[in-house]
């Protein structure tokens, strides 16, 4: 008997004729609320991300003096400052500029899904500065809204603020292994 059969046999013996209970879903489902961009900003800032509201992506990026910049292959070229130092190797890069897939207002979370304008996962992991561009139509209210939009077959990275730890006396401290600086550029409605 294989371990697979063994374990499945054990489970069936353990369950006997256990009835399958119904799942109760009385919580707020997807599409119960409208996305609130002010809330998103509040939550991003609360977790130490820096937020820029601007349609001039290249201008904001240039103002951050990003240094050696790595880019995903399908990024909008107009977002890249004319004099940027672009490198191919994320191991050498000091900063990365990407688009995003979804932003969750209630939790201040940005999700990347590896699309051509976001690139493979390691490019947003190794550089110390991640600059991430969010379009207004990508902002959703809640986690259920985000789940409804995402494709689980893609590699997903949910990012809520810069790398942090709560391992020392349970206080949140920013800056361990991931990017220590997260800048978010919100398009549409500069203010």
């Amino acid at each position: 008997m294989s371990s697979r059969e063994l374990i499945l046999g054990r489970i069936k013996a353990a369950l006997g004729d256990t009835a399958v209970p119904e799942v109760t879903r009385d919580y707020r489902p997807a599409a119960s609320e409208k996305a609130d961009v002010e809330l998103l900003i509040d939550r991003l800032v609360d977790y130490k991300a820096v937020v820029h509201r601007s349609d001039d992506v290249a201008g904001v990026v240039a103002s951050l003096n990003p240094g050696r910049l790595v880019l995903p292959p399908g990024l909008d070229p107009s977002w890249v400052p004319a004099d940027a130092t672009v490198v191919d190797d994320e191991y050498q890069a000091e900063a990365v500029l990407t688009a995003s897939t979804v932003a969750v207002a209630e939790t201040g979370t940005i999700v990347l899904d590896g699309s051509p304008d976001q690139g493979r996962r390691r490019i947003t992991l190794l550089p110390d500065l991640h600059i991430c561009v969010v379009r207004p139509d990508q902002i959703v209210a809640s986690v259920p809204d985000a789940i409804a939009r995402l494709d689980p077959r893609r590699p997903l990275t949910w990012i809520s603020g810069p790398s942090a730890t709560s391992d020392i006396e349970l206080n949140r401290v920013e800056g361990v292994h991931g990017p220590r600086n997260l800048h978010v550029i919100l398009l549409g409605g500069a203010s």
Partner: protein
Amino acid sequence: MTFLGMPTTAPRGVGNLRGDESFPAAAHKALQDEQLRRNLGHATTTIRRKSGAVIGELPDWQELREAGSTLKANTMARLPELLDQLEANVTAAGGVVHWAADANEANQIVTDLVKATGHDRVIKVKSMATQEIGLNEALEASGITAVETDLAELIVQLGNDKPSHILVPAIHRNRAEIREIFLREMPGVDPALTDEPAELAGAARRYLRETFLSTKVAVSGANFAVAETGTLAVLESEGNGRMCLTLPETLITVMGIEKLVPTWRDLEVFLQLLPRASTGERMNPYTSMWTGVTPGDGPQNFHLVLLDNGRTAVLADEVGRQALHCIRCSACLNVCPVYERTGGHAYGSVYPGPIGAILSPQLTGVEDNASLPYASSLCGACFDACPVKIDIPSILVHLRNEVPHPRAEKAAFGAVAYTMDHPALYTRAQHAAKLSRHAKKLPPPLNGWTASRDLPEPPSETFRDWWAKR
């Protein structure tokens, strides 16, 4: 008599589910450690405050708990079908699924997989399951080095210590102690290192960076696996999880068979429950989700090891099986008056606190962790805090009735329970204890608690004062 196919407890002689001494004996020592008590008190107070604040932001917290609870019950009842589905979907996405009946088999599978890569070092991201089975020890015995990459795990590993909390294994260490450990054990550390948490984190970043970039094999746990899609999820904070899950060529994930959720949509419940209940954040900094292998992105070899190791024995107990609903948030530890006073080591197993008191005895068989069901006052705080509404007090009572306990043990913890319900009694007892230092014995019914052992010095703060502050 056992025969193939019978639910079976976790084997002896491997892994970390059984302590060297009983809970009362271990707790007795811990209760005398003032520093430990201060560290724990500080940390659990912080986390309770943070967690309470972000839970308060959600108008539907109770509805989410109910959904989490019913989802887990539904999953357990359909486990064979859902595991089949998970296996098919992981396989279709390019992963390889392995089944491990117990700790020995899981250790063997992982060791063989690592050996087959030709490498002798793995990086690890926090996984309770691999601690449970003693994987690091097994790998070491085969000449493979396992590097823990979680800051807290690193502190524990460098300090030659044992984890004492599910989420923050080094919760028993304060910043000054962590600095000491780093200065002593971390090669190349800056001798001017201070005990500022940000500096300590920076030291870990520098220390591990090269290891992340050069190690070709990673071992991880998983918080959730989605049967419908074959997707795995790891929630973390530091980015070490992302490093382990994306940089190496080979990824081996070890996961208990109970970590399943039926559908992709179900994650919308658990992604709201877990961060708020565990670290007290609206969302943890990083969550990685992957389905099999993605060409050109991340590890190109993915293995999923599904672990039983006593879980089917837990499932066989109609009352106790709820313990398998646990999502390892550690909220029950953070609110437990007994945990706060004894710390995690006293529980002997990798699973400490209230969840440990119901899970460990069921995984090993109650005879091997006979005192744990008594390591509680039955005050019910754990039940209220649990994001998936596990009725821990009822399971404790149920297990107490099953334990072939020595009578004294029952008397001892019976007294703890009674006292917690009657603070005046404890105050009186402590008062009596203070008066009669020479005798070093508590009056009945508390004399069972010390069970003819020496009475520890009465704590500077009485139970009642401490309770009143909560």
